[in-house]
Structure formats: structure tokens, C-alpha cells
């Protein structure tokens, strides 16, 4: 087990990358502590699988280094890295029993049979496969097979990191929830570093202590779920995380004042604006937006009941601004105004949080 450091990592699938657009992964510096639970979150094609393959050794990066502890493993082949990976689609050895599947990584490394047996039974117990050990792996359902893949990842002791590449894609929704909590529980029990790749924010936020949000081959923000929610560093993070996503409202900044139309808005990072002037963007989450007597005048366009609360879609001119209200709350039919929680409203300069 070891800390994982990614130093000045860049990767391009082209032989001679010229412009930044040629890079699938643009300059990346990250440090992951031993035993942490991390998630790589981002839309398809953002480079998260590339990054994962670099860590697992299936790809050698064009630039930069991967360190496990103090050891440079950048050019080390997969089998020499002591890592485990669970793939998007279940990978099982069809002709073997569940038991042999779980024992496979250990037997390949010459672990004595009595230790193999001990370890297989411990892991089978953890992932609820004890009753099926003697069955043929090909006869299991998709989630059973994915559990085997998972078990093969967990069965070796002292792996540096276990990586999950969207492991719940093929699992039924009601089982997703179960497996997700299982993963969290396993992380606590085993204390191995785990990296979870997904495009599903719920999976990322429930699993990880630290979420790395990626877009177009870049890390836009790395932080705890709360940080990502309360203080997105980029409008992309604000929009990608949360349901509905953050409201992005064009605003005018002059003399340290933020205005939307004729209305002055209090923002959390007003002090950071300095002497900047002109058109910027105001980001505020629906959770921190409320109806008020005065403020930004809007008309109510649509109300969606989610059960727990209501999503109200309002219009200021042509601009859509959403807010969340409690079930019992009254929704004004006319002369509605919006107020924003100043601590959670931020100004964004060219997409990035003004700092």
C-alpha cells in the first residue's frame, strides 16, 4: 500500500501532439493518500479512463510520472504494479467455478493453497458469495458476475490500489444501491486505496471522500463532496453536480458591485473581484435561492414536484432560474422576486471562480 502521486502527467494518443486539443489528458498533478476513497467524475470522453489506464499500467503516459509511494512505476507493466481493477462489464472466467475465479489471482502468484482457501473464504463472505462458491461462474446473473470481478480485485492482500471503472453500469437499479453501500463498507474494512471512475454524480458523491471532477482532459476541481456542492470552482462543476444544477446568470460587475439587470446582488467572493469590470457570470445553486418580497423580479414558468420538494423554474426575461422550495411553501403567482444566499452565490470569470 502506498500513496499515489501523479506528477505533471500528460497523455496524447497521437504521435506528435501539437496543440492542447491533441491531448486526451492535459497537465495533471494529483496526490492521493494511502487508504483514501477517491472518485473520478466526468462526462464520457473527459479522459478519466485514460487516467485510469495510466495508473493501472495499460497505457504509458506521453509525459510525467506515476509514483506509488516513492517508487516510479510509470513504465512498469501492469502485472508488476500490484494493483487491482474492476471493469465496466463483468469479467469472469466462464469455465471456472466461483471459487476458482476468486482464487485465480492468488494461484497465479504462487500463493500456497491453504492461504488461498482462507483468503477466498474471507472475501466470499464479505461479498455474499459463500453459498455459491461451488457453482460455475457462467451461470450467475450480471450482478453476481460483477461481484466475482469485485472479489478478484479484493482477494489479494497488500495491493497498492483497487480501481473501479464504472463498475455498476450493467447492474439493475435496486441492486446498484446495495452494491454501492457494499463497496463503501469494504473500503472501511480493508482500508485499501480505492479509485472509482464514474459519470454518475450520486455514485461518486456517496462513495468517495475526495472527488476529482474532470472535463476535456483537465481536472476542474478536486475536493470533498461538500466543497464541490457549496463552492464549485468552475461553472461546469456547479452544473454537473447537483440536481438540478447550479443556476448560471450573466451579471455586470463594476466598482466591486455585482448587478443582474437593475438589481444589485450580494455575493460571497465580491472581495476577490478587485478591479475587474465587465460581464461575468453569477453562479448560485437552486438550494440557495428563495422567493422574497424584493430582489430579482421573475415570473414562475413551471413547477415540478419531486416528492420531497418542488423545483420551481422561473424566468427573468428569457433567462431560466431554478429554485427548490419545501413542499408546504407557497409559490407566488405574481410579483415574484428572488433572493440569493450571499454566502453561496459566487461570481465566475470565464467559467472559473473569481479568486
Amino acid at each position, binding site marked *: 500500500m502506498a500513496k499515489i502521486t501523479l506528477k505533471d502527467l500528460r497523455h496524447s494518443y497521437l504521435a506528435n501532439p501539437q496543440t492542447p486539443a491533441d491531448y486526451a489528458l492535459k497537465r495533471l498533478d494529483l496526490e492521493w493518500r494511502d487508504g483514501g476513497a477517491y472518485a473520478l467524475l466526468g462526462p464520457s470522453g473527459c479522459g478519466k479512463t485514460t487516467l485510469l489506464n495510466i495508473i493501472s499500467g495499460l497505457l504509458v503516459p506521453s509525459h510525467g510520472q506515476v509514483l506509488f509511494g516513492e517508487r516510479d512505476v510509470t513504465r512498469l507493466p*501492469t*502485472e508488476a504494479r500490484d494493483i487491482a*481493477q474492476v*471493469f465496466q*462489464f463483468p*469479467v469472469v472466467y466462464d469455465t*471456472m467455478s466461483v471459487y476458482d475465479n476468486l482464487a485465480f489471482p492468488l494461484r*497465479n*502468484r504462487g500463493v500456497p493453497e491453504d492461504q488461498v482457501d482462507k483468503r477466498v473464504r474471507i472475501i466470499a463472505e464479505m461479498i455474499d458469495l459463500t453459498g455459491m462458491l461451488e457453482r460455475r461462474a457462467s451461470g450467475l446473473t450480471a450482478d453476481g458476475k460483477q461481484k466475482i470481478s469485485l472479489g478478484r480485485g479484493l482477494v489479494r492482500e497488500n495491493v497498492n490500489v483497487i480501481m473501479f471503472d464504472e463498475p455498476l453500469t450493467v447492474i439493475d437499479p435496486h441492486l446498484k444501491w446495495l452494491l454501492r453501500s457494499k463497496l463503501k463498507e469494504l473500503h472501511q474494512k480493508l482500508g485499501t486505496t480505492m479509485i472509482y471512475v464514474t459519470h454518475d454524480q450520486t455514485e461518486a458523491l456517496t462513495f468517495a471522500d475526495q472527488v476529482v471532477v474532470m472535463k476535456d482532459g483537465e481536472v476542474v476541481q478536486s475536493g470533498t463532496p461538500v466543497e464541490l456542492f457549496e463552492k464549485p470552482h468552475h461553472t461546469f462543476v456547479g452544473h454537473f453536480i447537483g440536481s438540478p444544477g447550479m443556476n448560471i446568470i450573466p451579471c455586470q460587475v463594476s466598482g466591486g458591485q455585482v448587478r443582474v439587470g437593475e438589481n444589485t446582488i450580494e455575493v460571497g467572493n465580491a472581495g476577490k473581484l478587485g478591479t475587474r469590470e465587465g460581464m461575468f457570470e453569477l453562479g448560485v445553486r437552486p438550494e440557495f435561492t428563495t422567493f422574497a418580497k424584493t430582489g430579482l423580479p421573475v415570473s414562475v414558468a413551471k413547477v415540478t414536484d419531486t416528492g420531497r420538494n418542488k423545483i420551481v423554474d422561473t424566468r427573468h426575461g428569457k433567462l431560466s432560474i431554478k429554485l427548490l422550495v419545501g413542499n408546504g411553501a407557497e409559490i407566488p403567482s405574481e410579483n415574484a422576486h428572488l433572493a440569493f444566499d450571499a454566502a453561496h452565490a459566487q461570481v465566475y470569470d470565464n467559467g472559473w471562480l473569481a479568486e
Partner: protein
Amino acid sequence: MNKTVNQKAWFLVLPVVILVAFNALIPLMTVVNYSVQETFGDNTFFWSGVRWFEQILQSDRFWASLGRQLFFTFTILLIEVPLGVAIALTMPKKGPWVSVCLVLMALPLLIPYNVVGAMWNIFALPDIGLLGKLLNSIGFDYNYTRQTGDAWFTLILMDVWHWTSLVVLLAYAGLVSIPDAYFQAAKIDGASSWKIFRFIQLPKMKRVLTIAILLRFMDSFNIYTEPVVLTGGGPGNSTTLLSIDLVKIALGQFDLGPAAAMSLVYFLIILLTSWIFYTLMMRNEEQ
């Protein structure tokens, strides 16, 4: 819900029924008809019951042909299937060489059977053929028209050359359909290349190999043109396979009754063997 009962739907399957009737059922029934009768030249028939069947099953000639046929079929299966898999494993999975390899592999399959026979006939001639002359010049006493062993060697070599490609193409199709994740997972699990073959590639190729073996079994059991052109069944009767023998009886001696009975026995052997093989493979699959 009320179901509409409309028997007119039967008319829609009528064209297919007619087609199948003319290309399979009627010819087959003709053969059945011949197999239980004695024929004479002026189209007169006499009922003979199962006599022809008894005669066939008691004839040493039939069993000898069947024995040669089985030897041929199992020998080429034993060579072509492992060889085909081995070649498929060495073929590139992506890149410009894929199409080159595929075309090269498909070439022998495109050559008409009698041309294959003629090619090998000349190629293997001991005095002027490239192969025959070469073998003799390096010290082998090779003459496929006179020596039984040499005839068999040439016959099997020809079939391997002609048909291994089919196994290669099928096995290759099976191989490229295996998702990359399996190989990545195997790497991570520390599997050796033998284990990758044994536990990933081979099981994933099982279906296509079943088809390859079935096709090669049926085709080689029916083989006629190539050996006739190459050896004509000789020297003596040493390479007279079932189909060659059948043609000799039916057209050479014009014994329609015994030939028909033999055709049916022949047909049943192929049907039965294929069915047993397929059932066994598929039952294995379900477990």
C-alpha cells in the same frame, strides 16, 4: 383479447414449402423409393424391401470405404482445428495487416474444388511437379500415384491447404469478439499466456469452433471432387472414400437400388453424428 382465426396464413408459407419440397424432400423420397426396389433398364420396378440395406451393411466393401472415410475425416479434423486456431492466434487484431491476412486466408476457399484437385495433381507429380520432384530430389521415394501412404499424405495435405482457412476465419472471428477488458483483467490477475488461452480465448471460441468442427466434419464426409481429380480413389481402392464408392456403384455399375440404400445410410451417419455432437456441445454450454 380475441384472436382472429384465419387459415389463409398457410398460403404465405406455401412458396417455401414448394421450394423445400423440390430441392430436398422430393429428391430424398426418390432415393428412398429406389432403395426399396429393384430396377431394370426399361423402367420396371420390383419391390425388394430392406434387401439392399442388408446387402450394404453386410458388404466388406462398404465397411472398408466407411473406414477410410472416418480415417480421412478424423485426421483432417485433428490437423485443421488445432492448426486453424494456432494461425488465428498469431494473426494481428488491428492495423493494416488485418485485411491482408484475411484475404490471404480466404484465397484457398475461393478456388473451385476440381481446380484444387488438378493443382495438387500436377504439383505433386513425382517427375515434373514442384512438390513431387522436390521430395524425390531430397531423397524421399515419393510417388502418390503408386504408393498408398504417399497418396494419403497428398490427399490430407491438399485438404489441410484448402480448408484450414475456414477454421482460421471462424476462430479469428471468435477471437476478435473478446472484449479487451478480459485481457486487461487477465494481466492484472497475473495470468500467463497459456492460462489466457485456456481460460479466456478457448472458452470464448467454443461456439465458433463447434460450428467449424461441424462444417468440416460434414464437408469432409461428403468430399468427392478433389480426391477424384487427385487420385481417382487409387492406387487400387486405397483412397476410395464413401462418396467415390457411391458414385462407382450408382453410375459405374448402375446399381440404383444398392446405391440408394447406401446414400441413405451415408446420410443417416452424417445426420446422427452431427446431431449427437451438436447436442453434446450445447448441453455443455447450458450447464
